[in-house]
């Protein structure tokens, strides 16, 4: 029997079909622990579906998924901090209420880190979620994912709605919060330019298939250009 324990994520032959569209067409991936992976691809390439399959929010039509040697499910969810692209927040809650609600379900929640992030993201606990701008809600979603010491952090388009001037600051914040010896992170995005410095490794998804995968530095050397330029060359 294969041992997947060394990998944060092991995916083999992952397929997912929606009515009228094949979102994932046999994805094979092995992601090492302790790295930040960029999941890159244009809209509709299958990035969100892939992440949803890892969390168990979408049911694969075929293939194998192992998250730290566990199949997607209740036990695996304890290991994953997932930030979806959509607004998944209860709008009637306050910011602090949202943090308290989430904290109650996860043993790896770090209240001190949440406080620090709240300050860093310039949010106030008493603010109503429904009254926040889209960018502020995106920041709150990031806090919910980053305040956990989860072994696997999945961020789906984390900078969508956040103004470009704040992105760099937030990217720095993510790097500062990331504990490489304990955590693995997958960031899905199509805005590669401002996030490129984050990635240890990148996965290019195109029409539900892995087009390219590798160490970010190796790819830069091999292609003689930045990841952003490679992305443009492949997809634009």
């Amino acid at each position, binding site marked *: 029997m294969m041992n997947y324990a060394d990998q944060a994520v092991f995916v083999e032959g992952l397929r997912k079909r*929606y009515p009228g569209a094949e979102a994932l067409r046999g994805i094979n991936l092995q992601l090492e622990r302790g790295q930040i992976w960029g999941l890159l691809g244009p809209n509709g390439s299958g990035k969100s579906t892939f992440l*949803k399959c890892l969390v168990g929010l*979408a049911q694969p039509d075929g293939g194998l998924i192992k998250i730290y040697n566990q199949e997607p*499910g*209740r036990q695996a969810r304890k290991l994953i901090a997932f930030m979806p692209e959509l607004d*998944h927040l209860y709008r009637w809650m306050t910011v602090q209420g949202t943090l308290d*609600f989430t904290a109650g*379900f996860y043993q790896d929640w770090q209240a001190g880190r949440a406080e620090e992030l709240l300050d860093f993201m310039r949010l106030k606990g008493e603010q109503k979620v429904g009254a926040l701008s889209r960018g502020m809600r995106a920041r709150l979603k990031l806090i919910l994912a980053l305040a956990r010491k989860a072994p696997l952090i999945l961020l789906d388009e984390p900078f969508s709605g956040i103004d470009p001037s704040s992105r760099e600051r937030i990217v720095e914040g993510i790097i500062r919060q990331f504990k490489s010896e304990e955590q693995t992170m997958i960031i899905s995005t199509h805005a590669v330019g401002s996030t490129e410095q984050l990635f240890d490794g990148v996965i290019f998804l195109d029409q539900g298939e892995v087009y390219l995968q590798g160490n970010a530095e190796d790819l830069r050397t091999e292609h003689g250009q930045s990841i952003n330029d490679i992305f443009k060359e492949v997809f634009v």
Partner: protein
Amino acid sequence: MLPFLRLLRKDLESIRWPLGIISGLSAGLIVFLRFKLAGGWHEDLVGILMAAPLMFLPFWLFWQSFQSLRTEWREDTVYTLLCLPVPGWQLTLSKLCTIAAEYTVYLGVVAAANALFNPFAGEILASFPASWLLRNGFLFYLIGLSQVVSSVIFIQLAFVVSKMVGRLQGLVSLWTFFLAFWVTGRMGGLLEPLFRWIPAVPLHRLFRLDLIGRPIVSYWDAAPKISQGLIIFGFFWLTGYCLENYVEVNG
């Protein structure tokens, strides 16, 4: 248990406003009609209108049961719920308890408003001993609650099953709802012989009909209800299992 209590608190907080408004409106209607009766409105019309809040209750609860899950999908908060490392049955039980709380609060408000402002109810209440009314009122509350709970379970099952298919979700939901009713009846009938040993419940004693001088003798055969209750419990478990393992968020 703590995660479940957090879920329950979240669900209870989410219904505060709708429940407050609908209970307030219903109580307000009863008070309004009381004054209209004094102002000359016809007794029959006022009597029928005063009963409207109680007749409205099943529809309100039916709608809320459906809505409590539908809202999670519509507002994308289902991402939050399904990412939580809790068993699916805790998610559905929390919503079930919330509907039960709505039933209790709404019924309490409407009953109190009727007792205070409905002259027809006042006449009936005055003709029975208070302790007998309280006891039987509570028993009827429990009977109603059991109906509410089973209906909510059917609705939750129908909704969750519909979210397991990509197309025709409304139709699948309706079909599952009626199929669950049918299966409960049929399977309940099959299991019933297992519970025949349970003695019939003497209703006349349970409701203390002797206290109001009614020489009625009536027994309730518990076996069919117990077997159906087991099937409904099975559906509750199935709903939680499907919600946890097979349901998808919107594509």
